[in-house]
């Protein structure tokens, strides 16, 4: 019941978000036809604008766009007029989502064990080394990591292909370059929450009853300590699935991360608004999923 109501509240939130995105891109100076090759005569420009209803007041344009959206139509790209926004999403989203999904798995597969180890060996050398590498992972931006990985593993040692998106072999470097930051984040969050969980009263109670340290950490503390990581995964997945401009641009991967930036630079109104709405839907949906996962992980959490 609670989740149905949340789902119901998400609709006005998404409406406000789409309206804001719509207003923002339309208010920015310049338009989608500015960089077309031939400087069009005023009449031609007026005709093109009329064709895409850009001459109407903005609230009317928004109404029209909303109307189209009700049958799942995001509109036509104003820059690449042979493509609809639905085409761009259909082509780019699977690629970006694959890359992002793999990066998510990488972040979890590296971050959780490191976080667990550093928490279990708190104050010992494993903690310092693991902790240092976790901070380092957070501090190396992907526009530094991606070229370094490419220089070393694709150019010096020809282990992986330099760029493109064809075989699983092509995915290794981009996934690491994208996921390492999040691995560091997950490890740091998980370490702190493991330490907090291990000090909580129900763990002390279980220990007093004679439960072994291993069962205590793996079975009881682990489950509760996972909660902060779960809440972080909502926004993290929304970010990862909608693609990263730097990684996609650098490795020549045809995803929607590149489309979002390019369309914002080109004032390709429909594409910007469509992709922003896609991101917002993912974010709202994933946050809902996070809250639902809470009820499964922590029996104390109940939503009215």
């Amino acid at each position: 019941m609670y989740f149905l109501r949340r789902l119901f509240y998400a609709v006005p939130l998404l409406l406000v978000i789409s309206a804001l995105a719509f207003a923002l891109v339309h208010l920015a100076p310049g338009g989608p036809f500015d960089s077309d090759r031939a400087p069009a005569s005023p009449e031609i420009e007026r005709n093109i604008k009329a064709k895409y209803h850009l001459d109407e007041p903005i609230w009317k344009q928004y109404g029209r766009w909303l109307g189209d959206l009700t049958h799942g139509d995001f509109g036509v790209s104003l820059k690449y007029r042979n493509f609809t926004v639905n085409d761009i999403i259909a082509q780019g989203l699977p690629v970006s989502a694959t890359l992002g999904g793999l990066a998510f798995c990488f972040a979890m597969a590296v971050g959780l064990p490191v976080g667990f180890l550093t928490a279990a060996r708190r104050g010992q050398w494993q903690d310092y080394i693991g902790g240092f590498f976790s901070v380092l992972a957070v501090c190396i931006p992907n526009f530094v990591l991606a070229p370094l990985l490419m220089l070393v593993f694709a150019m010096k040692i020809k282990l992986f292909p330099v760029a493109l998106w064809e075989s699983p072999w092509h995915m290794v470097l981009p996934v690491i370059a994208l996921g390492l930051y999040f691995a560091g984040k997950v490890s740091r969050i998980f370490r702190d929450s493991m330490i907090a969980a291990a000090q909580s009263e129900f763990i002390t109670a279980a220990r007093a009853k004679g439960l072994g340290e291993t069962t205590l950490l793996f079975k009881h503390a682990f489950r509760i300590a996972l909660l902060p990581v779960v809440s972080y995964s909502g926004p993290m997945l929304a970010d990862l699935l909608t693609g990263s401009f730097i990684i996609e641009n650098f490795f020549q991967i045809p995803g929607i991360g590149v489309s979002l930036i390019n369309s914002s630079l080109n004032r390709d109104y429909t594409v910007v608004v469509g992709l922003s709405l896609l991101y917002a839907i993912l974010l709202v949906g994933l946050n809902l999923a996070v809250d639902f996962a809470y009820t499964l992980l922590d029996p104390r959490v109940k939503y009215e």
Partner: protein
Amino acid sequence: MSEQLHQSPGQRAWRRFKKNRPAVFGAWFLILLLAAICLWPVVLKISGSGFAKVHAPDQLSEKQFAPPSAQHWFGTDVHGRDVFSRTLYGAQISLLVGVVGAVVSLIIGVLWGAVAGYIGGRVDSVLMRIVDVLYSLPSVIFVIVLISTLGEMLKESHFIHESPNAAGALRVTLLFVGLGAISWLTMARIIRGQVLSLRSRAFVEASRTLGAGAGRIIFHHIIPNIFGVAITYVTLTMPAIILYESFLSYLGLGVEPPMASWGTLIYEGVSQINPIRIYWWLLVFPSAVLVTTLLALNFLGDGLRDAWDVKSK
């Protein structure tokens, strides 16, 4: 033990901070970096024209792509400029962007969060729903729209035609403020949480009983008490803003040549990557300085947080 009881919260935080070795390392690194940034131009000036000619950040020379040597510690770039000088020169812009942006985000975030948390009720829910909405939009849209709008406004004003130098400075300032203006959301949420817990504390109630108004309570009781938390998050916001500026420079929206930031330097290094000849120093040195600075800021931020955290005594 009794001695510790007489310490003020600030003194206790300072004692705890001094014991945190990574945090102290971070603070020292930042101090040394600042000193190097300030002293390097002086060194260039007093060491005579020969040295300055080789090392000045804008000095072009015939020695293109020279690898690191005793003369050029970080090598030279495509125009034969000294990369060490350019990295220090870029540090000015990058650190300034971080500081100004973080201060702007601090001011907006603290005011927003303090008002929402203190007044509460409907005002609180409206303010925090706005934060929710802003969170759900890709921030890059704001930046691009903001920067292009401001850029356009600048182009139209005749101020620019009178002095191009001032225009460049103004553009960079707008970039600084713009980056701060999109980075305050997390700060607002954290501050609101702090204020919510503070406003029901006894000393605030006492002040209210004595007839203090909302403004006085916010500025005299609430804000001084959230100072530690706010400073901590400033040091953790700075890396994010420095990285954002680098990203914008990568898109060509950030700092414009001949000015340089770490972002533009790294981007120059990246654009020189080719399979035939690898000019690794163009990428590695500016990146290493950037990463070390971010590490130092993170260590410093974590250290400050632990030092101010009352629970972790």
